[in-house]
């Protein structure tokens, strides 16, 4: 049987890769993908904790399901906004979104 720690290593790497991508990437879609990495690492965490530490209950699995659904909704709205930006300026690079910088 695979130990819990291996799953946690994967999820932790995913989480911090997501944070790194969020700060480092210069394209709105790439930033969105990084955020998805963060949210998915959380889903792994919940499922693993539930399966290994508290096998009698289902709270973690339920949370995972809800988190997946809600992150889909968030992504939909974010993509709609990004498409709107593309229509306005024909570009989705972060460096072009500096109109309000003083």
């Amino acid at each position: 049987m695979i130990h819990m720690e291996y799953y946690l290593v994967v999820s932790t790497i995913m989480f911090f890769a997501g944070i790194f991508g969020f700060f480092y990437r210069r394209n709105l879609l790439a930033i969105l993908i990084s955020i998805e990495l963060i949210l998915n690492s959380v889903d792994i965490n919940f499922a693993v904790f539930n399966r290994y530490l508290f096998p009698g209950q289902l709270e973690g699995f339920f949370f995972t399901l809800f988190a997946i659904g809600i992150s889909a909704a968030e992504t939909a709205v974010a993509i709609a906004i990004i498409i709107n930006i593309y229509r306005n300026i024909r570009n989705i690079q972060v460096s072009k979104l500096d109109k309000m910088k003083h």
Partner: protein
Amino acid sequence: MDFGNLLYLKEEISLILVMVLLLLFDLFCTGKIRRYFQLTACVLMAVHTLIHLDPMPDGQAFGGMYINSPILSVVKTILNVGTLIIFMQARNWLSRESTSIKRGEFYVLTLSTLLGMYFMISSGNFLLFFIGLETASVPMAALVAFDKYKHNSAEAGAKYILSAVFASGLMLYGISLIYGTTGTLYFEDIPAGIDGCPLQIMAFVFFFAGMGFKISLVPFHLWTADVYEGAPTSVTSYLSVISKGSAVFVLMMILVKVFAPIVEQWQMMLYGLIVLTISIANLFAIRQQNLKRFMAFSSISQAGYLMLGVIAGSAQGMSALVYYVLVYLFSNLGVFGVISIIEQRSGKVRMEDYNGLYRTNPRLSIVMMLSLFSLAGIPPFAGFFSKFFIFMSAAGEGFYLLVLLALVNTILSLYYYLLIVKAMFINSNESPIATFRSDNYTRVSLIACLLGVLALGIFSMIYDRISLLAFGL
């Protein structure tokens, strides 16, 4: 299942009813009746506020996932009042040609964020809390990007949704670690499992960072100025008052209920954050020329003052916090109401445009001045009393140095609030903003704000009533 439990959700159900009615009105009523859409929205919201004026008794539904108690009801009523005032102020902006076709969407989206805040406030479990938080922040992003043909609005929308989702990702990671160490998500059961081990402290830091983004405390405040400037003014006022007030209250509730065993650690963390938030926001506010950006930094520093009530963690702190939110709501909406109507009529939002406003629009200038005095905390107005109570609550727990720093910062904030007053009353200007008549909705909303600013401090029964219901560590 006992359906009687659903009665505890009375406020949520009636809000959903208002939402559905407005949606149907928007769908099916065309032609002449459509003119009454705004009136219907305001009346429905006012009725919804009035029938829930009386606080709900203690109760819970869904096996303790949903909790209602009198103080939660009071907070919901405060949010209702704020939303009603914003509905009245938004009328001018929504009647313009470019937005009039989608004005129904504004009301439905606003009410659904309000519904999310209701669930967030009433949650007794991290799952419901998370769902409420997302229900509040996803439609909020759509609202920020509402003027979709304007570059600024779209840009602000992207900045808002990306930082909001990032923040909720951080918070979720914290919650997952809390679940891993305690084995439950119920607020009631978690404290028994919290022993202050390093993993839990890290979980708390992640959770708090996520909430810090929502409240825009200082290391996490970078999105605030851009989003506040780019969003439509009515949405900015909603963000700065309703969204912020509910998030601060929920944070306090969770710190007191869930993280009570590690109170020393979180008080230490909050201590540093409050000092940073108040001073940095005040310093940046001084150099702002755009009034919406200015109000963004002012609202960050006000969030710092709100956190003084949170750090106390006592029942007194909670009542001071709720009272502060109420007063802040009226003063801030007064300022935003004036900014919004002037932006609609003349398209100007910069501080030098306000030079000589008193000569052309004396009444608006006086409303703006009194609201700014209240925000700064000058004695006869409500803002003084709310600041006094919140300083008292922090000093009562022994944070004397913190209160002193906050007091020094209050003087600093007085300087930049007075800059606007000086621009309106003293600075001369060859071509000031032309005299205009504001519409009745804006007038009623500004009078309501003015009454709130003048009367809330003098009538002590409101604070007494709140302090009877509050709870603490």
